[in-house]
């Protein structure tokens, strides 16, 4: 382990996406101060450029894979995959945030700055190879997103979302942190590799401390990915937060938290996997059931998508339960597909809701297909992907996840998971029915065509979903290579 005060060039390159995002965020804050809140649109464009550059930087960093900063981060294929996913999610959200914020007269540089900081935190979570880096990265992502949830500060719903998210998030963070403390006591280190080495001793050498640490770390991550029974915050927060922020919360933080979860549990805690796989099994099943059953009864579309995102976390948990490199690859693929389809669906909601989010009821979408056939068609594609219909990314996500589960011998979990996804079709289908088979509602009747950024975000997510459904090989191959995490 080098003890240099000055990071080398290649180390900086391996961290370049995060550096870029943080610098751009700070620049936005400064420019916001200088221009006096009049240049929101331009600052938004700058944020898009920064995210695009970070995307390229991730690819550049991937050309020099390896450890950096005393081994506390690892710019490997796994990190690159998740970096690309969370940056892409951030890019899409930033794209359709603009029209939404302008409608609420709230487009300012701070919004984009916080978005960039949050994405930077998520990128770092994906590459963190040491627990305290992981924790601080998680807090970076979280604290920024607490503020984003309450960004429309005059809105009572947004306040409530922010305070609930903040308090529960901090509560869960405290558990996560306690978990880090306990594993530090057990292993004497917070570097994942050293923890693994410490736990890999002969059977019986690990004390209950290791188990307790695994429990609390899992609780912390499960909170962020909204897995049962830690999912309680998600519906309220998604409903109350501004639609683009809800989209963001359902995508980036969730993917990044899964990245952290996978890396920690597939490397550091892999030697004691027998102690935690049972509980992950239960959590996966409970998450799927709670998400799908509750979604059946929802009429608020943001809440419905919240429960749906809980259910999808459950499917990814199935892949985690498999705890094999195939399972990890399946989880990665699923998350990539999930991020696009979910963000795309939220893009439609953010556009459709109108000022003050007046139209967020499923029935408000009635007859959308008549007024905006293209939007309806693209949304249908995304919904079909969420159902898991073939030729969409969502289908292959489920396919890989359940294949991995079967290879790990989890027959019952697979059967119950498939049953769940059969139930889930119902509530997505309800939206389809409403859009295509009802007379236009007043909400759909006076709907203007979507602004260009929303259109772009929608097309991009629909195309990504379709590409993942028709040509999944490339992505899966990459994920399979990346899934072999170095211990």
């Amino acid at each position, binding site marked *: 382990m080098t003890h240099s005060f000055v990071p080398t060039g290649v180390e900086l390159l391996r961290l370049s996406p995060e550096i870029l995002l943080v610098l751009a965020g700070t620049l936005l804050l400064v420019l916001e101060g200088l221009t006096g809140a009049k240049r929101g649109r331009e600052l938004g464009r700058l944020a898009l450029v920064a995210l695009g550059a970070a995307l390229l930087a991730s690819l550049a960093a991937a050309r020099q894979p390896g450890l950096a900063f005393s081994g506390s981060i690892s710019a490997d294929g796994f990190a690159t995959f998740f970096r690309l996913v969370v940056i892409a999610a951030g890019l899409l959200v930033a794209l359709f945030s603009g029209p939404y914020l302008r409608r609420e007269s709230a487009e300012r540089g701070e919004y984009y700055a916080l978005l960039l900081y949050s994405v930077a935190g998520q990128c770092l979570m994906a590459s963190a190879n040491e627990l305290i880096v992981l924790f601080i990265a998680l807090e*970076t992502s979280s604290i920024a997103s607490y503020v984003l949830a309450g960004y429309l500060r005059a809105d009572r719903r947004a306040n409530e979302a922010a305070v609930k998210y903040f308090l529960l998030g901090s509560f869960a963070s405290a558990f996560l942190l306690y978990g880090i403390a306990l594993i530090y006591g057990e292993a004497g280190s917070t570097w994942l590799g050293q923890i693994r080495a410490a736990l890999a001793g002969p059977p019986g050498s690990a004390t209950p401390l290791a188990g307790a640490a695994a429990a609390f770390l899992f609780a912390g991550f499960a909170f962020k990915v909204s897995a049962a029974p830690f999912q309680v915050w998600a519906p309220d927060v998604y409903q109350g937060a501004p639609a683009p922020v809800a989209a963001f919360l359902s995508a980036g933080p969730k993917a990044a938290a899964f990245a952290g979860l996978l890396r920690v549990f597939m490397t550091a805690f892999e030697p004691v996997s027998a102690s935690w796989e049972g509980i992950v099994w239960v959590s996966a099943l409970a998450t799927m059931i709670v998400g799908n059953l509750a979604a059946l009864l929802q009429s608020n579309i943001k809440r419905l998508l919240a429960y749906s995102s809980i259910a999808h976390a459950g499917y990814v948990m199935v892949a985690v339960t498999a705890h094999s490199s195939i399972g990890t690859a399946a989880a990665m693929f699923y998350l990539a597909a999930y991020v696009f389809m979910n963000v795309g669906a939220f893009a439609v909601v953010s556009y459709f809701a109108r000022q003050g989010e007046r139209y967020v009821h499923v029935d408000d979408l009635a007859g959308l297909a008549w007024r905006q056939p293209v939007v309806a068609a693209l949304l249908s594609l995304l919904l079909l992907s969420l159902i898991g219909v073939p030729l969409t990314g969502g289908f292959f996500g489920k396919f890989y996840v359940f294949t991995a589960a079967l290879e790990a011998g989890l027959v019952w979990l697979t059967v119950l998971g498939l049953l769940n996804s059969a139930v889930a079709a119902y509530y997505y289908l309800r939206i389809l029915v409403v859009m295509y088979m009802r007379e236009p509602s007043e909400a759909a009747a006076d709907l203007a065509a979507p602004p260009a950024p929303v259109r772009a975000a929608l097309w991009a997510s629909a195309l990504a979903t379709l590409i993942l459904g028709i040509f999944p090989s490339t992505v899966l191959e990459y994920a399979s290579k990346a899934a072999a995490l170095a211990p």
Partner: protein
Amino acid sequence: MDALLFLIFASIAAVCGLNVVIQRQPIASALSLIGVMGSLAVLYLLLGAQFIAAAQVIVYAGAVMVLFVMVIMLLNAGAERPTGASLVASTLGVPLLAGLFAALAYVIFAGFPEPELVRFGQFRQGGAAELGYALFTRYLLVFELTSVLVLIAIAGAVVLAWREVKR
């Protein structure tokens, strides 16, 4: 001597901690919390962590809690009213918490079975120099990252608490 100090300050910490929880007046809770933090600072000293003890007093008791007290005063928050109720919290709360403490205690005693006695002065690397060296080598990235965290906190506070929203 060590044992006596521990017992005194551990008791103060525990009693103040309990007081944080049972007081209805937020300001009383805040003052109790300061009590906890102060006694923890002494315990840190006993464990040989001079720098952290100082930071505890300066950062926590000095800055964070001042902020709390200020907000409590600003909002003029009086004693809380026993409005509403959470069924789950009121029924499951006590057993859950008792279970949590019992489980943690079990785990700790199982993890540290042999009584290792804490003696003041046995650990001498808790000073600013050692800490600083670690911060700028192994933990350089985290250290830089915390500056981002503080920046976010500032930006967030500005976004949320800046005086007016023009809509």
